[in-house]
């Protein structure tokens, strides 16, 4: 892919890769922050179980 880029874009790409390698990254997600998707999915599974059991 890189070979298809103009020299200016390649230079820009290198600068960005360097910035990311130096740790210029967005805020990381802590494992504790998975609670919301896990809790909602858990409630949905419970709802499905109750509905299926009630049929």
């Amino acid at each position, binding site marked *: *892919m*890189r*070979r*298809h*880029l103009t020299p200016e*874009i390649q230079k*820009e*790409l290198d600068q*960005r*890769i360097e*910035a*990311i*390698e130096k740790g*210029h*990254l*967005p*805020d*990381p*997600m802590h494992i504790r*922050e*998975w609670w*919301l*998707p*896990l809790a*909602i*999915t858990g409630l*949905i*599974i419970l*709802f*499905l179980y109750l*509905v*299926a059991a*009630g*049929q």
Partner: protein
Amino acid sequence: MSGEQHVEREVYFGILPVLRGERQFGLLDFILIQVGFGIAAWSFLVGGYTGFVLPALPATAAILFGNALPLLLLCPLAILFVRYGVETFIGARSSLGPVGSNIFLVIFAILNLGWITMACFMLGESAIRVVGAFGGPESLQSREIGAPIFAILAFAVAWWIAHGGPLAIKFFIRVGVPAMFLIICGLILYIFIAQGVDKVLAAQPSQAYDSMRRSLASAIEWNVGLGFSWLPYFGQWNRLAHSEKSGVWGTYLGWGVVLNVAAILGALTALLVGSYEPTEWMVQAGGPLFGLFGLVLLILANLTSASVLVYSQGISIKTVFPRWSWTLACLTAVPAALLMLTPTVYDSYVTFLGYVSFIMASFGGVMVADLMFVKKWRISIRDLYDNSGGIYRYVNGVNWAAYVAVVIGGIFYFWTYDPVADRAGPLFEYITAGIPTFFISGILYMALARVPALTGNTEAVGATS
């Protein structure tokens, strides 16, 4: 700046990793854009089919479960795209290899033709009902002649809009999103005010399977197909998220939870009027005046959805093949017109969802397993952009361990459930097919990733962070 120049700028923006300071989406923006992009023909249709085989409560549970669980399973990939700011098919190089990622792009482009067909043919169905309301010619009111003509005309317009460049997205935001919003408000008014909750809860499905368990398993499977179908679109939005949490929560809440509102309303309406086809129940539910207004909104919404799909396909192809002209990239969507010549593909929506489910569940399982358990979250951004593939070169650019796992996952899927014949295997009613396929492909991949003959024995496992 011309349309072509706008596209070139977007393509370079698509190729280059997005840096932290350039991110545009917080959590709320992210949910809104996901929902705006996601709610369309496919949401109403899958809801309609679900309400065709299940009563209200089980239908609601099947829709929520079928969409939320696949999104939860795919969400670790959101972290990859947020962290490094890369597009799906660039990020996928780490697990599939550069050539393998391009093969995945081709598969995405083929499936995208199916989604474009769904949007355009539903528009055709809406148009023939509008023609019928105004007493137009018989031939233009038929599904066999009128609907394909309107669908192909709509596709031509959508293609032209998409070819115009980022205008498609502006058109989508200004026209498609409000049109969908009005349809949803109309459905809420119809279901909860005009009909009443008791009537909805008591309604029985018109085409249920022989057993409740089979109806539930099938409905879950269709929704799982829609849930996994978002995989190729993960990168394009997540790379713009402010933080990893915004990306993961936004993706899960937007596509996995909030989007279900449209499908649930579709299911409840289908239960009340006994049809899964939104263009049919819109007239039955809204009467001649509001029904007609609803059909016009549905036409606008599907036109914008089709434009965005053609545009997304063109941009994805240009990102991987920057030398292709924008016209050529957009022309890859043209075969969709062939699928609109008869109602066959549109009527086979649940079969199509079955194929989407097995393909995306297999790829998703492999990509998540690779990121979490093989690479252990360590990705080398430099090697993602390396001409030869760098440490992600694998065997001639393809990670065969990934593709063998995908194929075996597919075999398992078809043994469990044949979507063409709608034939269920012995386990289908207990475990369905798409979700176990995700796990089987992922676990198999973890074992195969240790076979040097398949992976080329590269240093991919020990990439730098």
